[in-house]
């Protein structure tokens, strides 16, 4: 299984977590990003995610490799949805396993921040007032 994947189907968090197993790991930690019903005081009805696959996959893999080296992880994986998502859907899953909890917490935070900053994925929010817009922070 690739460590970083784009998926057009629902993310199976339990299956992702099992793939982190390692006999030297003392624990695992995962962050799930969910689609919420508001952004900057606007009511959000649904989202579309678009990705540029080749660079999303190479940047995603590079980020995971950096995290494993930087935080001494036993495993690190990430899955990000593309396509149409509803409120409450899981948009992104990042998970790590490590010998000790400190590294796992630090790595998870760093990973989700780097994925949001570097991986070419874009979010189009559809608002309750009928407007929509791609976010380019």
């Amino acid at each position, binding site marked *: 299984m690739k460590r970083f994947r784009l998926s057009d189907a629902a993310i199976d968090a339990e299956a992702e977590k099992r793939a982190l197993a390692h006999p030297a790991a003392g624990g695992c930690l995962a962050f799930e990003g969910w689609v919420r019903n508001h952004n900057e005081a606007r009511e959000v009805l649904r989202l579309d995610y678009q990705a540029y696959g080749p660079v999303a996959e190479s940047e995603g893999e590079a980020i995971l490799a950096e995290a494993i080296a930087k935080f001494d992880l036993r495993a690190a994986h990430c899955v990000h949805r593309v396509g149409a998502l509803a409120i409450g859907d899981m*948009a992104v899953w990042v998970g790590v396993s490590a010998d000790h909890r400190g590294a796992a917490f630090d790595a998870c935070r760093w990973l989700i921040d780097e994925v949001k900053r570097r991986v070419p994925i874009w979010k189009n929010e559809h608002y309750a007032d009928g407007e929509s817009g791609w976010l380019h922070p």
Partner: protein
Amino acid sequence: MKYKLLYFASLADRAGRAEEMRDTSAQAPRDLYAEIARQHGFSFPADRIRVAVNGALVGWDHALTDGDEIVFLPPVSGG
């Protein structure tokens, strides 16, 4: 030279298409972006855009080759 350009997110909306074939004298992403930004009305300055050629991130002065697939990546919003 002839290039294939892919557009994403608001750049695709602004250009009114997801891809185009372009015949141009531009030889580096810097000149090509200036040309298409003018033509399609892209408002992002180059310092907010990243460039990918044939699936790999490159610099603005990368030497382009006939037939390259080029993507100008606007600021991302995954997660």
